């Protein structure tokens, strides 16, 4: 039976933990708001750019074989696959990183005959795969909450370079999508070769530049946008996951404190009762 002092010590320690989880939850919810804002701010551009792309494709598609003239559209046999894994830099976010890493491992295991190389964004994914026998083509850590357009551009350039030079036959993004505060969804998205949305032009557009030339420049930009979107989604999802996890941890700590307090009171009462019995029986022995 634990002594009173031990119980009190444990209650104090759980209370301290609870304070930390509570603070982390609050920090995460403040950061979540900011991250969500960035996601929302990025949406109009993505929507409009998608429409422009569709219009240009609509204008060009009469010209015949697109994939022949634009290498970014040409799909070939997948022998060398590039997987970009976007994890968080920090833990304590529930199953956020675990789910992603599991999905990545599953992706690799499911392609034993292909050569999969990993581009790792985020410390957690790096820490896991660095010690395993996978090919790592690059890693970037420390930007999971602050990824900017420039980061997305740098990655896009690297990936397009690898795809064009034949170092990769296809490129996939693996990241957590922010669905709601309570749920994140692991997303696997193929970004190269690009599959163009089937489009017809909404209007009969005048073109300042030949539409085909414009398309050739639009395509790399659309990859940058997809990567940026993944970065922003992942940042928001990370904060949401951490907030939920820390909320659950705070509730659990309350439960433990309640249980321990109840136990502590029982033990205390039992010892008081025992002392009274001792006093009473000692007194009666004197009579």
């Amino acid at each position, binding site marked *: 039976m634990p002594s009173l002092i031990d119980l009190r010590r444990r209650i104090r320690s759980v209370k301290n933990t609870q304070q930390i989880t509570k603070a982390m939850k609050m920090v995460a919810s403040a950061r979540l708001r900011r991250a969500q804002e960035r996601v929302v701010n990025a949406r109009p*551009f993505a929507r*409009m750019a998608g429409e*422009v792309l569709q*219009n240009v494709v609509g204008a060009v598609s009469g010209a015949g074989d697109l994939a022949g003239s634009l290498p970014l559209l040409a799909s070939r046999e997948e022998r060398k696959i590039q997987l970009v894994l976007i994890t968080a830099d920090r833990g304590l976010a529930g199953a956020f990183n675990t789910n992603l890493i599991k999905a990545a491992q599953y992706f690799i295991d499911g392609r034993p005959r292909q050569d999969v190389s990993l581009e790792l964004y985020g410390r957690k994914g790096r820490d896991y795969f660095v010690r395993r026998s996978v090919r790592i083509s690059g890693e970037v850590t420390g930007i999971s909450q602050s990824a900017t357009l420039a980061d997305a551009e740098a990655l896009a350039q690297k990936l397009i370079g690898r795809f064009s030079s034949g170092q990769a036959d296809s490129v996939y993004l693996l990241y957590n999508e922010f669905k709601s505060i309570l749920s994140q969804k692991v997303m696997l998205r193929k970004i190269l070769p690009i599959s163009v949305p089937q489009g017809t032009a909404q209007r*009969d557009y*005048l073109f*300042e530049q030949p539409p085909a030339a*414009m398309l050739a420049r639009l395509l790399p930009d659309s990859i940058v*946008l997809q990567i*940026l979107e993944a970065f922003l989604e992942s940042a928001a999802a990370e904060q949401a996951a951490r907030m939920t996890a820390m909320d659950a941890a705070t509730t659990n700590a309350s439960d433990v404190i309640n249980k321990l307090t109840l136990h502590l009171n029982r033990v205390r009462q039992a010892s008081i009762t025992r002392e009274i019995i001792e006093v009473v029986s000692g007194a009666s022995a004197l009579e």
Partner: protein
Amino acid sequence: MAATLRLEVATPEHLLLKEQVTQAEVPGLQGALGVLPEHSPLLSELGCGTLTYVLENGQKKRMAICGGYVEVGPDFIRVLANRAEAADDIDVKRAGEALQRANERLLHPTPELDVARALNAMHRAQSRLDSAARR
């Protein structure tokens, strides 16, 4: 016939502007494009330069933009710029310094100089200065 156009300016990270305007001038890749209401549909790439627009109350505004696309419809202009900054927000001193840096780099090239990038930086700084100077 519509008397105004809806002007939307967005960068990949923000929607910067959504206003009714009576006319606008966009820096296209091959020169400035003036747009009035009922313009025929048009798609173009953007260069670096100054976007000028006139609000319904006659107020004239400027914005430095660089790279991207513009889509014109009968009652709207959508500017998808890679970089954009309202003229009032431009830090003239910083832009001036950036221009000087780019200039120097181009005048005294080192072997590892990325000429395209330096030229780009120069254009960007120049367009910001131009937009700010005319306010």
